[in-house]
């Protein structure tokens, strides 16, 4: 393992300190327990609280600010934060219009956020994101994982909350955006957890992991690498099938938001190449891309690979997607 770090135990805190310094105009960092908030808290709006294991930067810490999140609680690498982090953060913010938790669907995140929510006296709701098409859903299991679609949920609900809407409205929109989103990822290499010091999985020089999770969890299948166009064909098929199972019509005139997301080790040039392949596929199928985002938005430490997320747009989602956002890592309209 080769990384820029001092002691593995301090990796996340050292990184958060740099993050807070680089964005001191926007960000407040609390160290004990660890949480991050916008510099200026507006206690009158619905407080959007997200968090999860670290290693997915800029998710969630990079999305704090006007038009997006209020609080992020980063856990250790790939390990969900503990309830005291959420509780302290919310007490620090003293929200008057309730708390909306945005939680990726992993047992650990769900349970820790649940424990926190049982221990606070503030009004609250939770949006669980579970957009990973790689996992087949079932009411008997943990269900689908929350992956890059979470960014879209955070952005869209962030705009609604900023506009002064109430907790229920935010919860309803969050659930809708999540339901409208579907993602699939492919890994070319493993990631390496700093404290573990070795790759999470091993993968052959000519193999890819199709349907990989953002923690390096195995996906649907291990296969031989092939032309990007062919990989993308499979990815698009998996997403369209998922929409089909959700009885959603991707040909809706609202079009889709297409997010081509890098896991961190894949260069922007390859992400754009993937974008091109997706666009070619969708154009053949008469699916209209009306919004785009390409870059490293939900990463998996140093993993090489990428995911595709499609979100079906309607006027409401589009309006809130387009609304101004001013965060360290997502910024437009101001």
């Amino acid at each position, binding site marked *: 393992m080769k990384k820029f770090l001092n002691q593995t135990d301090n990796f996340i805190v050292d990184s958060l300190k740099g993050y807070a310094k680089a964005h001191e105009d926007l960000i407040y960092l609390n160290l004990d327990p660890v949480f991050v908030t916008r510099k200026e808290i507006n206690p009158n709006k619905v407080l959007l609280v997200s968090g999860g294991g670290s290693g997915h930067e800029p998710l969630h810490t990079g999305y704090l600010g006007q038009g997006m999140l209020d609080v992020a609680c980063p856990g250790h690498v790939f390990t969900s934060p503990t309830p005291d982090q959420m509780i302290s953060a919310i007490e620090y913010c003293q929200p008057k219009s309730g708390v909306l938790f945005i939680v990726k669907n992993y047992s650990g995140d769900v349970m820790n956020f*649940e424990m926190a929510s049982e221990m606070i006296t503030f009004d609250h709701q939770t949006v669980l994101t579970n957009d990973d098409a790689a996992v087949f859903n079932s009411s008997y299991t943990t269900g689908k994982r929350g992956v890059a679609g979470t960014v879209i949920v955070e952005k869209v609900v962030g705009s609604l909350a900023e506009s002064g809407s109430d907790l229920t409205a935010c919860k309803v929109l969050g659930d809708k955006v999540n339901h409208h989103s579907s993602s699939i990822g492919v890994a070319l290499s493993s990631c390496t957890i700093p404290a573990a010091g070795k790759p999470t999985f091993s993968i052959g020089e000519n193999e890819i992991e199709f349907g990989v999770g953002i923690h390096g969890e195995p996906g649907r299948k291990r296969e031989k690498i092939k032309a990007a166009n062919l990989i993308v064909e499979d990815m698009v098929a998996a997403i369209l099938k998922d929409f089909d199972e959700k009885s959603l019509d991707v040909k809706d005139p609202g079009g889709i938001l297409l997010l081509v997301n890098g896991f961190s080790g894949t260069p922007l040039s390859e992400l754009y190449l993937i974008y091109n392949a997706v666009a070619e596929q969708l154009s053949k199928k008469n699916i209209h891309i009306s919004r785009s985002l390409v870059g490293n938005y939900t990463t998996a430490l140093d993993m090489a690979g990428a995911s595709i997320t499609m979100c079906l747009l309607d006027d409401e989602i589009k309006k809130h997607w387009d609304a101004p956002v001013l965060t360290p890592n997502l910024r437009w309209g101001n």
Partner: protein
Amino acid sequence: MKSDFIIQCIDNITNCIVESESEIESLDRVIGDGDHYINIKRGALAVQSIKGDLNHLTNAEAFKKIGMTIMSSVGGASGPLFASFFLALSKEVSDNDDLHKFSLGFSRGVESIMQRGKSKLGDKTMLDVLIPVSEKLQSLVKDGCEKNIMIKEIDLTAQAGVIATKDLIPAKGRSAGLAERAVGHIDPGAKTCQIIISTICNQLNKG
């Protein structure tokens, strides 16, 4: 139970976990995300760091403090589950318990994990060790089983539970996403529980 027994357990368990690093870690790398050992070790060290405070506490208070410490140090899936166990246990035990009372507390702890995790036997989790161990403990206590035999039986039950996870299709936790691909692999949380239980059995055997 005396507080020095609990403290001895804490030290032994921490050592055993550290000794089993590569075994535990490799399991979570295969069907999880590779952090289970790191999480468990962090929890064990956090509990070890409050050892000194436990002396002055009742068993109930001690288990509560252990639960809270785990809750705010471990995170992940295993953190809240282990924390729930100790918090539930702490509500049942007193300082003058017999084994019967403790076994009831243990089963309350396991139930609390099931509740928090919305999980049950056969989901390929730590519960596949904890539920059989809990049931075995009840029945052995009910039958008035001899201490040495009881220890041996519990240890064997825990070990059987770990092995049993191998062939299961996961329903809960991170590995649930893998479905059939997880078959053939042991659940890391189950392994950790077995190591902890075996360590305590060992200690009881010696003491």
